[in-house]
């Protein structure tokens, strides 16, 4: 069980992102317990700054500094690290998944990560937590397979390749002495979710969530609060640098089970849910995947095609080393997490 460090500044990149806001909000609520003396948040523009501020509790006594800058811009990274003197911790959540063009993926997820890690090394970061993904590892070879903590790279399309580049950059810095670890969330959900995620609920509600074949594909999922817990534990862990953990629910779910649970959560929150009847042949998933690959090779990106292409895959991961090393146990179940997400949407005035 990791112990939290004594009061140190915490730098969060991508602080206005989905995970960034959830993490910042958690830190704002628990700064003392987590041993955070100051939160230094990097956001891209004033719009993001406002978004982040609106996500934080009103009456916190957190020492908060928000910096506007871009991780792809080296002077901005320098400014970010110059803002803390002495030791600090860093959680590098900045990354993009649905880019305008493919080159952006590599600029942010790979090159910027490399620069951030190198700066963190030279500025004497105490501990760095890098947020990666399942995508450097592709998908499981069959529905019953589960990814172990350590797997060979098999990047899924350009996003996977760029996140793999990020992991390799982290490991290079680790070999030069950086005290960094990697957290790999698979599909996560919950408060602060971007607008695109609400289509997920609307699809389930209208009975049109794409279930491929017999729906036996399995997916690991994680509620955002569980993920934040995992990130905090990784930050406090005192073992060997270079380690990586899956942070997810204990078991992966069958896609049909996910659709059923979300349907139940929606019903219990007072929504009318139609029976899901969008059963698609496996072939369509393959077609979407091929199309996605083809489109991406032209340097472009179409989100719907990408998501559809990924839905007929099994991405299941084994969290036992996170439990063993970090004492991580997912506290919020899928059903409960979905209910909280639906309620959060309602509070934000988001129509489902």
């Amino acid at each position: 069980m990791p112990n939290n460090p004594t009061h140190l500044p915490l730098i969060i990149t991508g602080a206005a992102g989905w995970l960034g806001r959830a993490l910042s909000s958690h830190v704002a609520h628990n700064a003392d317990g987590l041993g955070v003396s100051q939160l230094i948040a990097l956001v891209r523009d004033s719009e993001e700054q406002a978004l982040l501020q609106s996500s934080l509790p009103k009456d916190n006594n957190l020492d908060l500094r928000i910096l506007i800058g871009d991780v792809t811009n080296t002077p901005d990274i320098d400014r970010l690290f110059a803002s803390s003197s002495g030791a600090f911790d860093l959680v590098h959540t900045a990354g993009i998944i649905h880019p305008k063009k493919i080159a952006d993926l590599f600029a942010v997820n790979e090159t910027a990560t490399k620069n951030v890690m190198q700066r963190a090394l030279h500025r004497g970061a105490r501990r760095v937590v890098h947020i990666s993904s399942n995508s450097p590892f592709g998908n499981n070879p069959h529905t019953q397979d589960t990814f172990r903590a350590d797997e060979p790279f098999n990047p899924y399309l350009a996003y996977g390749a760029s996140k793999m580049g990020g992991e390799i950059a982290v490991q290079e810095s680790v070999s030069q002495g950086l005290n960094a670890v990697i957290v790999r969330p698979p599909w996560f959900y919950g408060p602060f979710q971007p607008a695109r995620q609400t289509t997920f609920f609307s699809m389930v509600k209208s009975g049109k969530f794409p279930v491929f074949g017999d729906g036996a594909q399995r997916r690991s999922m994680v509620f955002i609060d569980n993920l934040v817990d995992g990130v905090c534990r990784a930050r406090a862990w005192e073992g060997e640098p270079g380690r990586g953990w899956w942070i997810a629910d204990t078991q992966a779910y069958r896609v049909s089970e996910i659709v059923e649970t979300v349907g139940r959560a929606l019903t219990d929150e007072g929504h009318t849910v139609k029976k899901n009847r969008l059963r698609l042949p496996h072939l369509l998933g393959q077609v979407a995947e091929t199309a996605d690959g083809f489109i991406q090779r032209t340097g472009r990106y179409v989100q719907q095609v990408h998501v559809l292409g990924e839905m007929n895959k099994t991405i299941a991961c084994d969290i036992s080393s996170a439990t063993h090393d970090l004492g991580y146990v997912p506290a919020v179940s899928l059903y409960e997490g979905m209910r909280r997400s639906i309620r959060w949407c309602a509070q934000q005035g988001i129509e489902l």
Partner: protein
Amino acid sequence: MNSMQQIWDDANESKMSCEVLIIGSGAGGSPTAALLAEAGFDVLVVEEGRWVEQGTVAPFSLDQMEQQYRGGGVTVALGLPSIAYTEGRCAGGGTEVNSGLYRRPPTEVVERWRDRWDVRDLDPDELMKTATEVETDIHVTHLPGPASVPSQLLRQGADALGWKHDESPRWMTYPDGNPRHGQRQSMTRTYLPRAAKAGARILTQCRVNKINISHGKATYADISLANGQAGRISFKFVFVCGGAIQTPAILQRSGLRKNIGQTLAVHPTVKLSARFADAINVPDDVPVHQVKEFAPDLSFGGSASHAGLIALSLLDQWSDFKGAIEDWRNMAVYYAAITSEGRGRVMSVPGLVDPVVTYRLTARDRELLRSGLSRLSLLMLEAGATEVYPAFRGAPIVRGRKDLATLQKRFSANKASVMTVHLCSTVPLGENRDLCGAGSYGLVHETKNVYVNDASLLPDAPGVNPQASVMAIAVRNARHFIAQEKPHA
């Protein structure tokens, strides 16, 4: 050896008779012969291959392949990709040439066989008791000392990744206590001498071409001897134990076809060679450690690795890989084996000595081979390999983790050297007539006295090294036969 007096290396009679004819002296045939002879039956074992005394050829050598394997070890199941398979052809069959790694059939596998194929009275506990007896008979034991370096490397790599592994026991004795001086307790050392002692006759270099059956009753077998001479052996009962490829071929040549040779199951295997900074090669033995983290879907282990076999494993991408061969002393070959959803067929074709064999991998099998080869490569890197050479056309040399992405991208099962040494399920046993070629104790359906008692009977591949399963089932069936037929004899 005195008790071997009855073993004729050259038969000169063209007509013989016996009460029970056993075709094939491998893991299935030999215990059957011993138990039946000890129960008082008049047993004649015929074996196509020669009697090769252990120690007269180097284990795992090319010389051994030449002498004790069918087709010199080069036999191929057609398909995309083709799958190379090997069968022992000598007194003792596969047990003389194999790695000797002993794995009981997992309980859930036995239950699956019982339930899905409807095998009567196949009780997992009873079968394990039988397995225990076999273990005593063939001296199944762990190493008396440290494992060979290639075996330890496998273990180290698995430890570094936190992957489960264990040491497989082997049918071996270690007369001087040195783990490098093991003597394989194959059939020519165990059940065959026992059979001979109990009065069984053993005839080597005698091939059965077909069995003559009318109205479900078999009466004699047509044979040919090494010198080309033809002959005939008449019998009251026949046990076909030619292995999972030859047994269905013999039955088909004899006119039996229903559920025979349609469901060949194998453990498809891909390989790599790993190069280390130091000399680690052990030419005359194989590793005993196996990585079971992903079992039963995937298992990793070590293969025979003399210089010739290392060259063979580099062949697929020879233009890039050939430089490594000079360093063979620092190298060893490892495998990733999968359980396969695919199935194959064995078809005897008039005019051809050997049957035509085909096998089709499913999409899942192919993905699993990819995943297996890359996970195994990762393990070798963790074990300290400086370079890993995966055996498929277009493969990269793997020097670091980034290269694993290239490996996975370039891999396709069609480009790989897929092979197998575990063949089974061509005459599945059980009462389910839609699936089974033989009854619950191996009596071929629609016959009165034709039994199968070898690897062909296993309903599907056990997901572990199969010889223990083959032997336990063979002993079970032999006992049942004795109980049924002895009172009438």
